[in-house]
């Protein structure tokens, strides 16, 4: 069997397992009809979407499989960042003294999935919106901009998120 064929089968299998686990969590049932419906649906959807779910070039296992413990820590940090940014945003809305600016900076993250998670996390926290992600270059609209230095802006906007994402997806 060729390496590319084996890799495609592996990608289908991983996609199928993830979808089936989600199905089990949603239905919370071990009824035979429910299991057959879940298996059939998961297999069908994984055959259609595996190319999108895991890109062919993402051949490193650490590139897309997260470390569970670090993922939990990352979600906790994200939740903290969400509320701290929201309070800052709330004060800015009431006082009406924003300093919005579009800033450009780079990320040290290598994996495509991890970069997507970082840009999604930046958009998720109020006060920052990712406008563009091009390779390792991020363009962000920052509502509380207090510097003209792009590297410093990047460090403030990314905060602790980048460091934690690097631990989740190596």
């Amino acid at each position, binding site marked *: 069997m060729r390496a590319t064929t084996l890799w495609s089968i592996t990608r289908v299998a991983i996609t199928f397992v993830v979808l089936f686990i989600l199905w089990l969590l949603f239905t919370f049932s071990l009824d035979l009809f429910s299991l057959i419906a879940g298996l059939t649906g998961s297999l069908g959807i994984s055959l259609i979407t595996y190319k999108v779910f895991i890109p062919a070039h993402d051949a490193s296992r650490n590139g897309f499989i997260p470390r569970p413990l670090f993922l939990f820590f990352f979600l906790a940090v994200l939740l903290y960042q969400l509320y701290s940014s929201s309070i800052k*945003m709330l004060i800015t*809305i009431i006082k009406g003294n924003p300093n*919005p600016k*579009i800033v450009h900076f780079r990320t040290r993250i290598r994996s495509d999935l991890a970069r997507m998670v970082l840009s999604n996390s930046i*958009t998720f926290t*109020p006060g920052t*919106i990712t406008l563009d992600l091009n390779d390792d270059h991020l363009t962000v609209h920052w509502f509380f901009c207090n510097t003209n230095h792009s590297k410093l802006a990047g460090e403030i906007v990314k905060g602790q998120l980048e460091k934690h994402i690097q631990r989740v997806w190596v």
Partner: protein
Amino acid sequence: MVETILSIVAFIAFLTAVIFGGAGVFGLFKFKNPYAKLQSGSLCGTTAVISILIGCLALAPTWAMAARIMIIGIFFLISSPTGTHIVARFAWVSGQLSAKEEDDADFDDVEDTQL
């Protein structure tokens, strides 16, 4: 005892959702720039919704229901910023400036006309 604590947590979460949701709507009308409106909208669109999900999680009667709420939360974590990003990116590609850049551009126009 545990039920009382969970009810208090849920009450605080729902109250937080109302506060942030209200502030988000207020900001939507207050700011003129589309990016600023999006930033305000994210208070309703993310913080308020996450607070409601935390409240629902505290009040979940069974583990099955809690697991479903968690999955909805994970889907929301992925889909909500994506929607905001699409709108913001379209504005950016269209050449929309940030509020500060717009003010600077207006100031330059005034200076040019005076010269």
